[in-house]
């Protein structure tokens, strides 16, 4: 609880809650649409080997996660260092031991974890039907179609989350992102 309290304080004093939320949605959206595109591609190609589909999608999910963590950490660490240096100049003292110094060291890591975890976990949710099918669990539809359904649901839920953040009606926001998912599926369909 002490760590949670500190993390909240660091996010508050650096005004980073909005940044973390934005990263979660942006990279989560990336993850969901990447999986949607990949699975749609496998579907129209008539791929039947679930091992190949799973490994390709899992590889992409891991790459998105690593890319999310590393890119956010590098950029946020630079931003936090700059902000701390400016504040130290204004205060005329070293703030390394203060909450601001701790925040400058830890907030980039927290944001990087959010940025990397969002696409990874959303991708794993979308791939869940493929794992279940491989494990012999009966599904109501074909595994690839069920995974496509999960991707569409994930994109819709991200839209609902955005709607709640912005104060917009959740259904309207969810339908907007759903339209983007359907547009992506349509564009991939054109490849056939």
């Amino acid at each position, binding site marked *: 609880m002490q760590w949670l309290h500190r993390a909240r304080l660091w996010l*508050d004093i650096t005004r980073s809650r909005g940044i973390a939320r934005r990263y979660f949605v942006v990279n989560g959206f990336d993850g969901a649409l990447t999986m949607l595109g990949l699975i749609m591609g496998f579907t129209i190609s008539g791929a039947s080997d679930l091992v190949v589909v799973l490994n390709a999608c899992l590889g992409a999910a891991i790459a998105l996660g690593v890319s999310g963590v590393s890119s956010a950490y590098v950029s946020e660490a630079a931003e936090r260092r700059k902000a701390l240096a400016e504040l130290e100049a204004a*205060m005329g003292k070293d*703030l390394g031991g*203060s*909450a601001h110094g701790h925040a400058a060291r830890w907030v980039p890591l927290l944001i990087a974890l959010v940025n990397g975890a969002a696409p990874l976990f959303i991708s794993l949710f979308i791939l869940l039907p493929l794992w279940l099918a491989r494990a012999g669990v009966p599904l109501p539809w074909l595994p690839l179609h069920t995974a496509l359904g999960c991707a569409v649901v994930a994109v819709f839920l991200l839209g609902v989350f955005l709607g709640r953040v912005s104060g917009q009606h959740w259904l309207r926001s969810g339908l907007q992102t759903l339209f983007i998912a359907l547009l992506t599926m349509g564009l991939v369909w054109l490849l056939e």
Partner: protein
Amino acid sequence: MINVKRLVLDVLKPHHPNALEFAHAVAATSPDCRVQVTVLEVDEKTETLKVEVTGSALDFERVHEAIGQCGGSLHSIDEVEVCSGGSGGSGGA
């Protein structure tokens, strides 16, 4: 036993944490602590505060540490009130 009863401090701090969060952090330094924060001046990145802390036995070092943890800088101790045993006393710095 000499107890510090009241401190009036001149503090420079960043805008965040705000005055309320700052007062919470200072108040947490002793169990019966009362903190009054007055914002005297606001600059682009900093603000100057008058911080009045009262309690039955204030721990100055802990108050100072809490100010530092919030990124603040103690500029001066403007008033103090201490008492030894049952009697009270006051002075200025």
